[in-house]
């Protein structure tokens, strides 16, 4: 052997690289060969060259290694592996799942029914939210249309309203025209009657500027967008045209609005869908016609009354701009024009975009505070919770049965199932249940939808043809299946076969803890919903029972929509009184359930000069008080005996308080400005009459006498006669004297009842959801109780043999559940209290949250729980121990 030349050895880095990346089993021989080769090369070509070659070889080996690892992996398994999701296994999973379902009928029924209910609720709420969110999207320019609102500051508070003065429309058009595509003045949407010869129908309609159809992108069936160009024209919705003309051609026909305006039909448009602001508006007439129809409107136009906020204004902003910049531009459009004495109101113009009309139109002190969107959120949460409750049932029942299925899992694992396959199997079971439940839920929704629509005042239809609905439904089903199946799938598949099959498997002391937590969650949600429902119901009742300050029994109102009504007062009054069908008849400027007019500019002795006077103003005829039955605190009613009563006024208590005067009767109030100042004398003070919102304090109101400023006929029916009889006589009289107007009457109590419609809707929906939540929770409890009873059959048998009574056993089994409900109660009470007091905050006139609500709902839930559990526990307690103990 030749002596070894001393070298620095092979490159260290290359060596390390080799060590790091090479197969450890072949490293030795490889490195050996490399080193030997290196020595050889050093001798042959020198060290430098040898090192270079060493590197080359190492890299060659690394390349080899890369390929090797690939081939080795391929060869590890000699058998072809089954992919986790193969069609064959899938079929097997489904078959087993189906067999399991059929085998345990009660569990399956509880699972499917519970999930279906939860899904149906979630689906209904989803449809409801969809409907709310798609409100007004019918209009193509939806994103660029806005209504003009204004903030006004009065007595230090900012009030925001959508009523604007007449000249504002023109102002926006001329001075700020570049910001707008369309500027459309509009009247308030209201009922009018349309007549075609003898045929009369009452429809809600609106008077709008010529650009309205174009701005709203109405779908014209006949005629064109220019249908409002001529002042005596009208556009009818399809149903209105149908109602008036039937199958005849409506175009160019002449009809009358309110018996006074002759118009020619210039177009028919497709009905605006229900979930749009204009869904209720059934005809549109020209703004010019509206202006011409009333003297006061012409005055507002001719005199540029900037202080008279009586109109609506809609705009579509130009394409090249956005709300923010337009808002900035037009902020002072009104303030720049108002007379000096009105500057103090700091009128600020603001655009309320169409996308906010429905859901975000509440303002508080000049700041947007939401609106219906709160309910969208609320119901969304409730839907999610109810669905969650249903999923919890599923999880609970599955894990409760885990000990039974533990053996199955053990055997499956022992014969070679890998965990993934078990997970798949449990998921397919849950998906199967969920798909059944989805089908059932669809059916439930179909059944409940008409009722739901009625309660929620909606016209929701199933979106069968909407791909979004199906995508959503599918995603939602998969999600539910995944959520509901995840716990059993992951928990059950984790069992160790050795433990399970040796028989030493015990779920452990804490295995039931998650189950208990879930039950507590369920009952917390249910309880909170129940408490909420009771509080809503309570609030409605409280407001309904609020003293209203007048007698609404047999009180009837008719709006004087046609000029024919006027001048018939005495005729009608004497005739109807003589016929004995009414006690009294009087006219007023506002319906008894609303105040249509608010006015400022009042002065009296000792008034704080900084006080902005704002009174509700109602004009009435002599016997108004007698008709509605208002109650005097001091002073006297209007009387025909005093001719001076034409300048007399009656105040309500709120007004006296607002004016801050000691002896109101006899005080003189001056109203008007400059030369138009008129003096009025207070002759009486009545107890507050609740005319507007039942949730707000009664507004300071002034009642003045007038036979000209009136719009409504009020009648008090004779209580001695049946309402039906009275109505027939009254109708006959009206037909005789006012032949062309339809006899549309309203009962005051019904109109009053309508004020609660919104709250009642929410109350009904909340009741519905709370009921279902409790139902689902109890369903789960029922399943759990039956499981526990079954699990403890032997224990119960032994106890019975040793002398336990049925009562003992019953309390033994029920105790656990009662504790859970109590814990739920402790959590739910403050939570519900917090949210509900927040809800009540929006009402000025609100009920208190009293303790009995919580106690009642707690006890109620407890009773329902006990009933549910008792069924199972008594059944278990009654079993003959011979039966349960015979085996083993």
């Amino acid at each position: 052997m030749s002596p070894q030349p001393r070298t620095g050895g092979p490159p260290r880095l290359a060596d390390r690289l080799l060590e790091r990346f090479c197969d450890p089993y072949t490293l030795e021989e490889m490195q050996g060969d490399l080193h030997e080769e290196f020595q050889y090369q050093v001798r042959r070509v020198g060290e430098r060259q040898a090192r270079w070659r060493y590197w080359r070889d190492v890299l060659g080996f690394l390349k080899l290694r890369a390929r090797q690892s690939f081939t080795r992996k391929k060869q590890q398994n000699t058998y072809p592996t089954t992919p986790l999701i193969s069609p064959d296994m899938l079929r097997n999973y489904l078959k087993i799942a189906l067999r399991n379902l059929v085998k345990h009928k009660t569990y399956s029924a509880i699972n499917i029914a519970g999930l279906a209910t939860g899904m149906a609720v979630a689906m209904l709420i989803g449809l409801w939210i969809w409907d709310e969110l798609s409100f007004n999207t019918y209009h193509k320019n939806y994103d660029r249309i806005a209504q003009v609102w204004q903030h006004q500051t009065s007595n230090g508070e900012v009030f925001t309203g959508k009523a604007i003065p007449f000249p504002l429309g023109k102002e926006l058009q001329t001075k700020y025209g570049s910001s707008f595509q369309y500027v459309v003045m509009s009247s308030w949407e209201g009922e009018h009657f349309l007549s075609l010869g003898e045929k009369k129908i009452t429809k809600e309609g609106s008077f709008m500027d010529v650009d309205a159809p174009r701005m709203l992108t109405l779908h014209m069936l006949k005629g064109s967008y220019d249908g409002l160009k001529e002042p005596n024209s009208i556009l009818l919705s399809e149903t209105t045209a149908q109602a008036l003309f039937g199958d005849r051609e409506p175009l160019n026909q002449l009809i009358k609005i309110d018996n006074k305006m002759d118009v020619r039909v210039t177009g028919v448009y497709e009905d605006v869908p229900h979930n749009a602001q204009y869904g209720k508006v059934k005809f549109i007439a020209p703004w010019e016609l509206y202006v011409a129809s009333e003297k006061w409107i012409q005055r507002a136009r001719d005199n540029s009354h900037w202080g008279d906020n009586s109109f609506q204004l809609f705009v579509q902003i130009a394409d090249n701009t956005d709300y923010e910049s337009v808002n900035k531009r037009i902020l002072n459009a009104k303030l720049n024009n108002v007379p000096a004495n009105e500057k103090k109101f700091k009128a600020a113009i603001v655009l309320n975009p169409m996308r906010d009309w429905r859901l975000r139109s509440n303002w508080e002190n000049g700041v947007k505070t939401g609106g219906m969107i709160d309910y969208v959120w609320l119901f969304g949460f409730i839907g999610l919770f109810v669905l969650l409750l249903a999923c919890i049932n599923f999880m609970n029942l599955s894990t409760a049965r885990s000990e039974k299925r533990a053996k199955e899992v053990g055997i499956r694992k022992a014969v070679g199932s890998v965990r993934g396959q078990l997970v798949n199997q449990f998921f397919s079971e849950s998906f199967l249940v969920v798909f059944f439940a989805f089908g059932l839920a669809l059916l439930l929704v179909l059944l409940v939808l008409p009722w739901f629509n009625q309660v929620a005042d909606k016209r929701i239809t199933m979106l069968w043809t909407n791909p979004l609905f199906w995508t959503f439904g599918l995603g939602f089903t998969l999600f539910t299946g995944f959520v509901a199946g995840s716990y059993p799938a992951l928990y059950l598949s984790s069992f160790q076969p050795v433990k399970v099959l040796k028989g030493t498997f015990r779920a452990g002391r804490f295995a039931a803890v998650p189950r208990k937590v879930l039950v507590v969650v369920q009952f917390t949600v249910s309880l909170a919903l129940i408490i909420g429902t009771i509080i809503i119901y309570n609030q409605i009742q409280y407001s309904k029972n609020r003293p209203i300050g007048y007698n609404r029994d047999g009180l009837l109102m008719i709006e004087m929509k046609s000029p024919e009504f006027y001048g018939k007062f005495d005729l009608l009054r004497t005739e109807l009184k003589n016929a004995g069908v009414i006690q009294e008849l009087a006219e007023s400027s506002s319906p008894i359930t609303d105040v249509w007019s608010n006015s400022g500019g009042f002065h009296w002795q000792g008034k704080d000069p900084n006080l902005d006077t704002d009174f509700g103003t109602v004009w009435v005829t002599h016997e108004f008080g007698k008709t509605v039955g208002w109650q005097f605190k001091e002073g006297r009613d209007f009387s025909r005996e005093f001719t001076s009563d034409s300048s007399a006024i009656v105040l309500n208590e709120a007004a006296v308080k607002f004016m801050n005067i000691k002896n109101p009767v006899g005080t003189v109030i001056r109203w008007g400005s400059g030369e138009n100042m008129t003096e009025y004398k207070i002759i009486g003070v009545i107890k507050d009459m609740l005319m507007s919102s039942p949730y707000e304090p009664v507004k300071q109101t002034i009642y003045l006498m007038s036979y000209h400023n009136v719009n409504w006929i009020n009648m008090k029916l004779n209580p001695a006669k049946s309402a039906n009889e009275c109505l027939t006589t009254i109708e006959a009289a009206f037909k005789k004297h006012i032949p062309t107007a339809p006899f549309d009457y309203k009962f005051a109590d019904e109109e009053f009842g309508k004020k609660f419609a919104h709250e009642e809707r929410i109350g009904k929906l909340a009741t519905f959801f709370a009921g279902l939540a409790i139902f689902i929770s109890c369903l789960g409890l029922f399943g759990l109780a039956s499981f526990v009873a079954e699990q403890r059959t032997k224990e119960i048998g032994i106890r019975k043999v040793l002398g336990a009574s049925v009562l003992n056993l019953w309390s033994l089994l029920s105790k656990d559940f009662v504790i859970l409900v109590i814990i739920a109660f402790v959590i739910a009470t403050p939570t519900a209290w917090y949210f509900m007091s927040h809800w009540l905050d929006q009402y000025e006139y609100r009920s208190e949250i009293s303790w009995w609500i919580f106690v009642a709902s707690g006890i109620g839930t407890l009773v329902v729980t006990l009933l549910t559990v008792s069924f199972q526990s008594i059944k278990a307690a009654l079993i003959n121990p011979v039966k349960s103990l015979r085996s083993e």
Partner: protein
Amino acid sequence: MKRSYLGEFEEIVLLTVAVLEGQAYGVALTHEIIEQTGRSVRLNQIHSALQRLEEKGMVKSEMGEPTAERGGRRKRLFTVTAYGRRTLQEIQEVRVTLWSRLLHPFKPATSL
């Protein structure tokens, strides 16, 4: 013929293993093949060929003695298995048969 396909390079490696008779390992084989065929063969190519041959069952291996020039590492010594031998024989037979069937055997180029 029902046996594993043997590449030309593998055949040469296998044959060389047989030639070296129990002294066949990476470096020795490399040098032998370079000498005999004049190809520029590299260590890793030999190793990968040997691995393939072992997977195919043509050669078997055992670890030999450590030597100083290998830094104290052992060498893996390869021997041809019976299967490998048969395979080599079969290949040879096929070639011989084919050569013998040439009707006009190639004449040395010098005769031209």
